[in-house]
């Protein structure tokens, strides 16, 4: 167990800049998720931490120790692969014991540790099976067991749940989180699934094209996205640009294409000089208008999709499209005219 520090990491694959001067610090025992679309460099970072990939520039530290020249087999990280990468010719037991054998741990010690881990992950009774004879969920657990049994300094996950069906995915991610908390292993988790990232992480690193777009805890990433990429990549977003026409402390009045809105900016201030701002709010923030509510917008429903707990609505407000997700018992259909209000603190100001 150890903290992890990445400084000025750069990696280029022929024409593509996979990682661009990236800095990141992860505290001991922290669970950090690298989230981004495919090709954003998240897997390259993971593989660099594991030592499978040599950076063009930059350093990797585990604690105070620089790891750049340490080969993968000496780094004491444990990685869970997307494909599980179980050894197909070995039994479950041999798969899990592999790392311990490499550490030259005595047979007795191995037995104790493996039994413990197998019990923790509910793998008892599968010791003699080959990976081919296991279900996807079981294979995933064996991969997990194989990784954690070695008590690694850093645990690495490369989209470990993408081959599981939706239900199992939710179940296993809870298990992973529980186990990580119990063992307190520093963990780097790579995924492109925003729900997974929000549910599992202490902190999320949203990445795009090799650099960090935003870094923060799940709440902040979702509620206060800083860029339109982050806003659009995580959750649904209505993004508009407007001109600041008045200011009262942290309350800004913005002239947007669909009308005037009042925005309360919590953290970030709008720079004095700039007149135009980009802002975002979530579809679920839109409420059916009631007397006295702020930011009233009136529009025609283009499309209403009933989803059970909510209704997903696309509305047209003076030629501007926006999306709302409301909990409304009334049946809404296209063509209805409807009035919404948007709470003043629902907005986030974006930088660029």
């Amino acid at each position, binding site marked *: 167990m150890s903290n992890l520090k990445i400084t000025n990491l750069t990696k280029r694959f022929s024409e593509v800049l996979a990682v661009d001067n990236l800095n990141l610090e992860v505290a001991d025992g922290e669970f950090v998720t690298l989230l981004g679309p495919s090709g954003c460099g998240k897997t390259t970072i993971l593989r660099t931490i594991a030592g499978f990939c040599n950076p063009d520039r930059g350093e990797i530290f585990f604690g105070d120790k620089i790891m750049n020249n340490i080969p993968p087999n000496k780094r004491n990280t444990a*990685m869970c*692969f*997307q*494909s*599980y*990468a*179980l*050894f197909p010719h070995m039994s479950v037991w041999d798969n899990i014991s592999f790392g311990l054998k*490499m550490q030259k741990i005595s047979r007795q010690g191995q037995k104790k540790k493996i039994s413990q881990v197998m019990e923790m992950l509910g793998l008892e009774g599968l010791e003699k099976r080959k990976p081919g004879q296991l279900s996807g969920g079981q294979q995933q657990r064996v991969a997990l067991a194989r990784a954690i049994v070695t008590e690694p300094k850093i645990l690495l996950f490369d989209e470990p749940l993408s081959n599981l069906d939706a239900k199992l995915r939710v179940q296993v991610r809870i298990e992973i989180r529980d186990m990580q908390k119990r063992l307190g292993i520093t963990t780097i988790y790579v995924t492109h699934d925003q729900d997974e990232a929000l549910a599992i992480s202490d902190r999320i690193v949203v990445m795009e094209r090799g650099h960090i777009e935003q870094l923060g805890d799940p709440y902040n990433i979702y509620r206060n996205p800083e860029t339109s990429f982050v806003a659009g990549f995580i959750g649904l977003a209505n993004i508009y640009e407007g001109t600041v026409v008045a200011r009262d402390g942290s309350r800004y009045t913005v002239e947007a294409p669909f009308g005037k809105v009042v925005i309360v900016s919590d953290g970030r201030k709008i720079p004095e000089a700039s007149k135009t701002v980009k802002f975002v709010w979530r579809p679920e923030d839109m409420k059916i208008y009631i007397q006295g509510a702020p930011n009233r917008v009136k529009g025609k429903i283009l499309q209403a999709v009933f989803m059970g707990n909510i209704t997903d609505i696309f509305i047209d407000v003076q030629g501007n499209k926006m999306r709302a997700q409301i909990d409304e018992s009334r049946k809404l259909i296209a063509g209805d005219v409807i009035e919404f209000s948007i709470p003043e603190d629902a907005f986030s100001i974006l930088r660029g």
Partner: protein
Amino acid sequence: MALTDSTAETSLYLIQARKKRNFYLLLMIFFMIVLILWVGIPILMAVMWSLVDPKNPWSYPNLFPPSFSLAQWKYVFDYTNIGRALRNSYSIAPLAVLLSFVLSLPTSYVLGRKKIPGKKFFMLVVLLPIIMPGMVVALFLSRVFTAFGLSQTFFGLVLAHTLMSMPYMIRVMTTSFQAIPQDVIDAAENLGANTFVKIRDIFLPMIRPGLLAGMIFAFTVSIEEFNLTFIIGTPTFETIPTILFSFMGYNFIRTNASVVALLMMTPNIIMLFIVERFLKSDYLAASLGKM
């Protein structure tokens, strides 16, 4: 009314389906019979010829020999070099397989797992012994061998057979090496395996099926190798193919040839049934399907 209509239609549909199924079944049975005859009759004929009683010859218009005896078998073993040829064939083959395995292993590893320039070229070079017409290689290689004093020697024959079996060995093992997912190797390394452990615990066990298939192909190639043996080995060393060739030459003795032919193919066919499950995974196709 509507009900009866639909039942009538349904039953008509069922009859048609059954007819179609019966037709396919017949077609399949016909096909199977043709296939079995295609392979079975030639072999059956050889078996019968090898059992012909010399005192009671088999000739037109008899469809079957009038009587059977083992006299031909005894004759072949008593009066020809078949025993020595068998010994030669079955001692050269395992040595050739072993040598070709040892030589092919590192090459296959590089071709299968490393990104190297000119890989296509090397893969083609490796096929040369199959691509090059056997007699040309045999004749002119014999001059090279003579120059090195390898002609008419046992070691020379082992080298020649190794050469001929290497394309199969290298291609099949290269395919096996390629088939190992990089993730699995990374996982091993991630868990602390060094190069030696990776080779011992990951690579070798995982290429084992391909390795066995390659060895079996190499073995059969060696057993049936004719051109090089004929030019480099005979008359000092006879193998089963060269002795069969001599029986089929000027003085064609069908009964003797039958015995030798059966001796030559029986072990191979037994091997085929043993290795069937390796062949099913189509190593040969996967490794030779592209040039």
